[in-house]
Structures are given as C-alpha cells and as structure tokens.
C-alpha cells in the first residue's frame, strides 16, 4: 500500500481557510497524516473549512484524524466545519465521533524512575513480604489443623492419591536424583583429593565425602531437585485447578480442598523425600568411591574401612532427619502458592516461579538452622 495516496492541501478562500483532504485516509497512511496534521499552525479565531470531497477511502483511523483536527482547531477558537462528506462515510463518522469521546487510556508505566517512586516500591515490597509471611503462617495453621483432624480419623487419608503422589514425586524422581548425586560425589572427590594431596592426606577424601554427603549434600541435593520438580508441579496443578474453578466446585460439593489436595501431597512428599535422600546418599558416595579409586587408587576395601572409621553412628541419621522437614517446607510452599493463583494463566506461571525460589530459599535457611541446633547439641 502506497503512502502517497493521502493528501492534505491548505488554501485560502475569501474569509476562510480551506483544508482539502483527499485520497485514502486509512490506518496505512495514518502515521504520515498524523505528523503533518500535528504540524499545521493556524491563526486563532478564523473560519476554517475541512473539505472532504476528495476522500476515496476512509477507516476509523482516518476519520479520527479528521475529527481530532476539527476538535483541536475548535479548541483554539476557530469556527470549523466539514463539507462534502460523502453519504456512505457518514455512519462511520458518527461512530468515531462517539468513540472518540473516550479519553485515551493511561498505560501503566513504571513509577520507580523517580526517587519517591523508588522508595515507594521498596515500601510496597517490604509490606508485601510481611503480609505474605502472615498469610503463609495462616496456611501453615490450616494445614496443622487439617493434619490433626486427619490423624484422628486415619480413614480420611485418601490412599489412592497418596500412592499416586508418592509415585510421581518419589519413584519417578529416582533417576534424576541418583544421577545428579553420583555426579556431585565425583566432583567432591575430585576437588577434595586435589587439595588434600598437598598434605599427603588423600585418604581423608573419604572422610570429606562421607561426612559431606551424609550430613549435608545428599539431603540438600534431593530437596532442591524435588523443590524444582515437585514443588513447582504442586503449584501449577493447584493453580490451574483454581483457574478452572475446580477448587470452588470442591467446596460446593463439601470436599475440603486442603484435605483432598494438600494432605496427599504433603504426606506423600514427607514419606518419599527421606527415601530419595537415602538414594542420593548411596549414589553420591558411590560416585566419590569411583573417583577415589580412579584418581587416588583407593580401593573399595580401603574406602569402606576408612568410611567406617570416619563416621559416627549418628552421622547418617543427622542428614536423614532433615528430609521430612524439608519435604514439609516444599509441600507447604508448593501448595500455598498454588492457592495464591489468581484467575489468569500468567498468574500460574508467576506463582510457580515464586514457589520454587521460596522453597529452595527456605530449605537452605532450615538447613542452616539445623546446623546451629546441632552445633549447640555438640553433635
């Protein structure tokens, strides 16, 4: 489409300025016309005629440009009139005149470009954090109450979804958790061996591996993978159900969404994460053993001997005890964020991201808290 097609010619008749519009006044030519119309300068308080005889094609964009010009000229105290408007354009003209009375929407533009806006944003974020913390706490309370009720009536635990959740979050996660732990074991052994060799203490790589993986890395790796894999799935599942009004439907049928949706996920994860931790521990140490054998020549026999001497009986349990707590955090955050979804697709995505970030954050905070407690207990 050629943009030459629309023209706009100024001329002067006795007692009146005449603007003759001609050609195709369409959205295709609107950018050029808009620029030229905004550039015209007319003395005030004149009689102005907009001659539309030459207009061949007109759409809402073209009609708006003409009507806006009329309006702006009239606002400067001129007397403006249209002439020679073709009859078949008249209904369009009327429609646009009606529509054009709407004030253009202000777009939501970020306000934090000013100092005040920046401070306001910080304030809002802080307040938001506080309210979120309170609402998370209240969700925690709801879950505790529901868990209490379910424990008194164990028949209310729905076995089928519980097992299904355990399969999805547990069994199906074994390959990824195992593989990553194996690789972490290799990396840890390699780096540890490299440093300890300088002191001729290569054999202590085994101690590093045993204690590191059993007490910290095994459970942490499993929890982080599960937060990314299952916590996000919880949020997306529950969030999508909220978008589809399935949660509301449950309430009207008399089902308690927390009991139906949260409890199987919570119990399922609390049962499977310890098992996944066990799996992560085993394969992590296996990875380390392989690496120790290959690079340091520590035979599997030496490895097991050294491992036995390095570990206290409770080392293993100190790692494993954290797993149900981490599972609780992941399931709590995952389900909570799912219930926070508003009724839009975008919201599902946002809450899912939040859920993963928060779950990993809180898992690491909890891990630090465990370390502090253990150090007080001198274990």
């Amino acid at each position: 489409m050629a943009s030459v097609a629309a023209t706009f010619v100024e001329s002067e008749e006795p007692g009146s300025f005449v603007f003759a519009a001609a050609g195709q006044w369409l959205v295709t030519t609107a950018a050029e016309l808009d620029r030229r119309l905004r550039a015209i300068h007319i003395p005030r308080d004149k009689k102005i005629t907009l001659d539309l005889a030459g207009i061949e094609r007109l759409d809402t964009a073209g009609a708006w440009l003409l009507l806006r010009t009329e309006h702006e000229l009239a606002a400067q105290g001129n007397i403006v009139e249209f002439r020679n408007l073709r009859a078949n354009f008249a209904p369009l003209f009327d429609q646009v005149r009606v529509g054009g009375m709407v004030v253009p929407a202000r777009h939501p533009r970020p306000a934090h470009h000013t100092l005040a806006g920046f401070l306001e944003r910080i304030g809002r974020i802080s307040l938001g954090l506080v309210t979120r913390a309170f609402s998370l706490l209240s969700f925690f309370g709801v879950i505790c109450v529901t868990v209490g009720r379910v424990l008194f009536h164990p028949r209310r635990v729905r076995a089928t979804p519980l097992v299904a959740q355990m399969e999805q979050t547990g069994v199906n996660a074994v390959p990824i958790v195992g593989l990553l732990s194996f690789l972490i074991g290799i990396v840890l052994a390699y780096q540890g061996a490299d440093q300890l060799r300088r002191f001729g203490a290569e054999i202590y790589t085994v101690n590093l591996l045993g204690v590191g993986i059993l007490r910290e890395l095994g459970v942490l790796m499993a929890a982080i993978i599960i937060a990314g894999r299952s916590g996000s799935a919880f949020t997306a599942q529950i969030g999508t159900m909220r978008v589809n009004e399935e949660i509301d439907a449950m309430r009207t049928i008399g089902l308690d969404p927390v009991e139906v949706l949260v409890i199987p996920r919570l119990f399922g994860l609390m049962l499977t994460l310890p098992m996944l931790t066990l799996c992560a521990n085993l394969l992590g140490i296996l990875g380390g053993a392989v690496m120790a054998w290959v690079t340091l020549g520590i035979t599997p026999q030496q490895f097991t001997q050294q491992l036995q001497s390095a570990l206290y009986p409770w080392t293993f349990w100190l790692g494993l005890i954290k797993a149900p707590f981490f599972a609780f955090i992941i399931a709590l955050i995952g389900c909570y964020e799912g219930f926070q979804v508003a009724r839009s697709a975008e919201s599902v995505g946002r809450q899912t991201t939040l859920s993963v970030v928060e779950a990993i954050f809180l898992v690491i905070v909890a891990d630090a808290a465990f370390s502090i407690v253990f150090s007080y207990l001198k274990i």
Partner: protein
Amino acid sequence: MSNQPGEPIIRVRGLVNRFGPETVHEHLDLDVMRGEVLGIVGGSGSGKSVLLRTIVGLNRPVAGEVEVFGSDVLAISDVQRRELEKRWGVLFQDGALFSSLTVAQNIEVPIKEHFNLPLRLMDELSAIKVGLVGLPKDAGEKYPAQLSGGMRKRAGLARALALDPEVVFLDEPTSGLDPIAAGAFDELIRDLKASLGLTVFMVSHDLDSLFAICDRVAVLVDKKVRVGTLEQLLKDNHPWIHSYFHGPRGRAAQNSKAAAATKEKYGAWLPV
C-alpha cells in the same frame, strides 16, 4: 470501502475435516458474501468452530480449498498471510485477551504488529475502539481479569476491529451473556456492520441473535451445510433443522422478532 453485496469474499469448496475416525465435514461447500451477516448453527460437535478455525487457517483440513478475498488460505506464503490477517478480525469465545496486557494494550497489539504508528495516535485509536464497542471510558486501563464476561467479549471485539477489518469472525459472541447484554451485543454488531461495512461470520447458538441480525444462516447438518435466509430455513423439512427452528425456543425467538419493532426504541444503548 468498495461495497458490492453479492460478491463472495469467502469460498469454501469440498472441505473435509477428520479427527481420528471422526469425520466432521464431508465435502462441505460454503460462500460468504460481502456485507452480509452469516450465522452458523448446528448441534454440539457438528463442527461449527472447526469450520471457523479452518477458514482463518488455525486448522488444516484433510481436503478441500478455502479462499478468502480470492487467495487460497491453504497455499499462500507467510507474507501474503500477513496481508490477509490485516483484513480480518477474530473474536474468540471468551475474548482470548492477552491477560498480561491492559485492554488498550490488547487493542494496540495488532496495530503495533502491522503498522508503525506514533504511540499517542495508537492510544487515541485504541480509545476509539473502546468507545466503539460500548465499553466504559476507564475500561482501557483495566486488565482482562478485572472485566466481566460481557466486557471481555466487547474488548475482544475491539481488538478484532483494531485494523478496521473487512470480515470479522465471531465465535459464539452472545453465549454466557445475560439477555440484556446479549441484545446489546446484537445491536452493536448490526450498528458496526452498517457503519464500517463489515461482513460478519458468526457461530452462534443464540436463536434471538440469529433472528435479530443474520441475513443468512448456514446450518451444519449431516457433515454439510444448508444455507438460506431464515424464511427458507423455516420451511426446511430436515428433521434437525425443523426441530431447531420450530422447537419451543425457536418459536419464542420468532415471536420476539415480531416484537422487535417495539424493542427498537430501547435500542439506543450507545452512550451518545
């Protein structure tokens, strides 16, 4: 716009659509004339929406040809397709507005995509469309989640009209609206058709809107269409068509059309 009624702008020939073992359309032929409002009706699962989606190129048929503005939709290049997309607008069932954008931004999406207009002019144009479809003045700043179902449909229509298309495809425009809102939507379509010279392809179950605004109606029965004016279809002996138009609801809609002359004085819904 050159307005020559009678010239077909959409031609569907020998259309076959199959999903697995299920045949939806079997050698279906359909013409849509310039300047008409064509209603598409049919039972659930008779392929009304599939027909619409096939014409706008969202669904590839098993066989057949679809011509819009004289070019074969199934064979054109991407460049030609973009040209075609400027000339039609589609309103999906629930508006299908982009939920992360405000209504005004939604309307500006097609303008931004196809034309390079100054921001201010785009804001003005989107405000006109907001007014044109009868949304309140502050609707442009709102997000789709803040709107009611009827307002979302109007906003979806505003986006469909953003480029002043020659044809609009409406998928069940009045479903889910209360009778007053549905009636107002009918009037809106009729007014816009008169002022913008629109051709309207409307999938609808709403007998009232069929009687109120359609020039012709295409009924999807037996995997084909039967097209005709309402008068012709009312005389049709096909069992489904007969029970559709002569069932209790069909008769009620016919009666209300007779009373439409009285309704006319309540028709001025536009905030003038």
